[in-house]
């Protein structure tokens, strides 16, 4: 049942205090979780998604591998506590299967799979909190996790949701807005400005669609900036940590970065 909350009031503010084209707060966490080769948690406002990537590694089911490329498997797991009411969702739920296969087809042309023939890249998507923009957050988190795992990609994939409330376009919708307003999810490749994913499931007039579509493509660039910043920060942290390691060693303290420290093995046995 729709509540009586206004989607966009006369002052141009939305139900959560944002303006029309304002995106929600983005928090990116690239610290390693468990044994995954790459993991990333992204939070868009209240929507939080964790993605873990394993691979490229030897395939579990040999018969499904391809002789010239890596196989990408995506499994989506929506936590029962992710929405307001606790609800356990079966693995075979068509909506979840569709989400998984959408993410898989989005990344197949972007990941350089031809570099890893006969292997498998496993992507596990865990949805921790849902407040609208599920596909958007899953795709962004998957991009970051793949980068974190060191898997070569052609480009970032940045996704954003958009909607149209009567004639005003809105960006980055919450659950409240998604239930009320026709919306579309767009994923772009920022370097070439091309669109790799467009999904819309609600009725919208073709002219309104054009407005929100172009807007969402531009918004992808903003998300790209945030993602790039987070990846650079993480890389800097790792490099500094490695530096520290070499600086604390007794030998080669003078030059610091250039010289590798030689470990003396002679007394080990």
């Amino acid at each position: 049942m729709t509540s009586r909350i206004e989607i966009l009031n006369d002052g141009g503010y939305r139900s959560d205090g944002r303006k029309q084209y304002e995106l929600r707060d983005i928090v990116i966490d690239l610290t390693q979780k468990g044994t995954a080769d790459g993991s990333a948690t992204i939070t868009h406002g209240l929507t939080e998604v964790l993605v873990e990537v394993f691979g490229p590694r030897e395939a579990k089911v040999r018969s499904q591998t391809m002789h010239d490329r890596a196989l990408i498997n995506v499994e989506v797991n929506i936590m029962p506590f992710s929405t307001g009411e606790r609800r356990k969702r079966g693995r075979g739920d068509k909506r979840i299967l569709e989400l998984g296969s959408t993410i898989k087809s989005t990344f197949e042309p972007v990941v350089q799979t031809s570099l890893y023939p006969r292997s498998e890249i496993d992507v596990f998507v865990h949805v921790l909190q849902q407040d609208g923009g599920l596909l958007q957050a899953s795709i962004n988190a998957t991009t970051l996790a793949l980068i974190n795992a060191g898997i070569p990609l052609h480009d970032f994939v940045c996704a954003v949701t958009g909607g149209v409330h009567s004639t005003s376009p809105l960006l980055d919708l919450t659950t409240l807005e998604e239930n009320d307003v026709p919306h579309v999810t767009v994923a772009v490749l920022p370097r070439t400005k091309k669109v790799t994913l467009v999904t819309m499931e609600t009725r919208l007039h073709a002219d309104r669609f054009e407005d929100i579509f172009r807007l969402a493509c531009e918004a992808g660039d903003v998300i790209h900036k945030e993602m790039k910043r987070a990846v650079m920060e993480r890389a800097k942290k790792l490099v500094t940590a490695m530096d520290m390691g070499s600086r604390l060693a007794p030998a080669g303290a003078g030059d610091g970065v250039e010289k590798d420290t030689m470990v003396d093995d002679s007394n080990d046995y």
Partner: protein
Amino acid sequence: MPRPPSPSIPEKEFVYNALKQSLRLDGRQALEMRTPVLTFGPELGWVEVAMGKTRVIAQVDGKMVKPPPERPLEGIVTIHSEISPMASTDYEPGRPTDEEVTMTRMLDKVLRRSDALDKESLCVQAGQRVWHLRLTIHCLADAGNLLDCACLAGIVALKHFRRPEVEVVGDEVTIHPPSERAPLPLSLHHTPFCLTFAYFPDPSTPPILDPTYLEQRLSAGLLSIALNAQKELIVVQKAGGVPLAPDEILRIIEVAVMKVKELDRIVESRLKEDIAGRHIEVR
């Protein structure tokens, strides 16, 4: 059964080279659809759609049930579509392939979630009795673009179906069989049609509409658009595949708008023809 063997290299090269010159194997233009052939069955709500060699049967039947407590004023519509191996050796019973999941979800979005059918008109007695319509889709043969064919069959079957007239007097509900009173058509808000475009790895190859089996297998990406004749988009689905410029996608939407007008005309004329040939009125 493992994945089906992909087309052979000579087939692949031939199709790619031909498409680069805008030549398709069956002689169609790049943006030309196969004209759908609609055959209506003896019962109302039974239709077979053939687009080239792709054939799909759709059937609607309805019965009265008690509505669920959370939605006492709306009817229920369920869509049952399973692709059996009869359609093609690609499909196995019991295990939905990626393509099957996509098709089931698209049918769901286009026919159910798009609110094409007015569910409130299916309510007979609030909280007590509503119509439960079951749309069953059988895919007989897959010669490419099963999705468009199935969506077309589904919506035509819904337009063709007539439900018995129901009279409610106080608490008494009488269902009049078709022989007593003329059955009524369902009330549809709009008529959605689905169009699928295929893109190929070589960027100089133009997109094609309504791919055949071979073209679908060799495509690098599919863009499915469901819309109605009033220029309203119902579903836009491009999941991965070749990345496209935003202008290209908007151009394809314009093409789809034109094609849907044609499709609408064909469907309306066939439906009128068929209904005129039947005796639905009381003797």
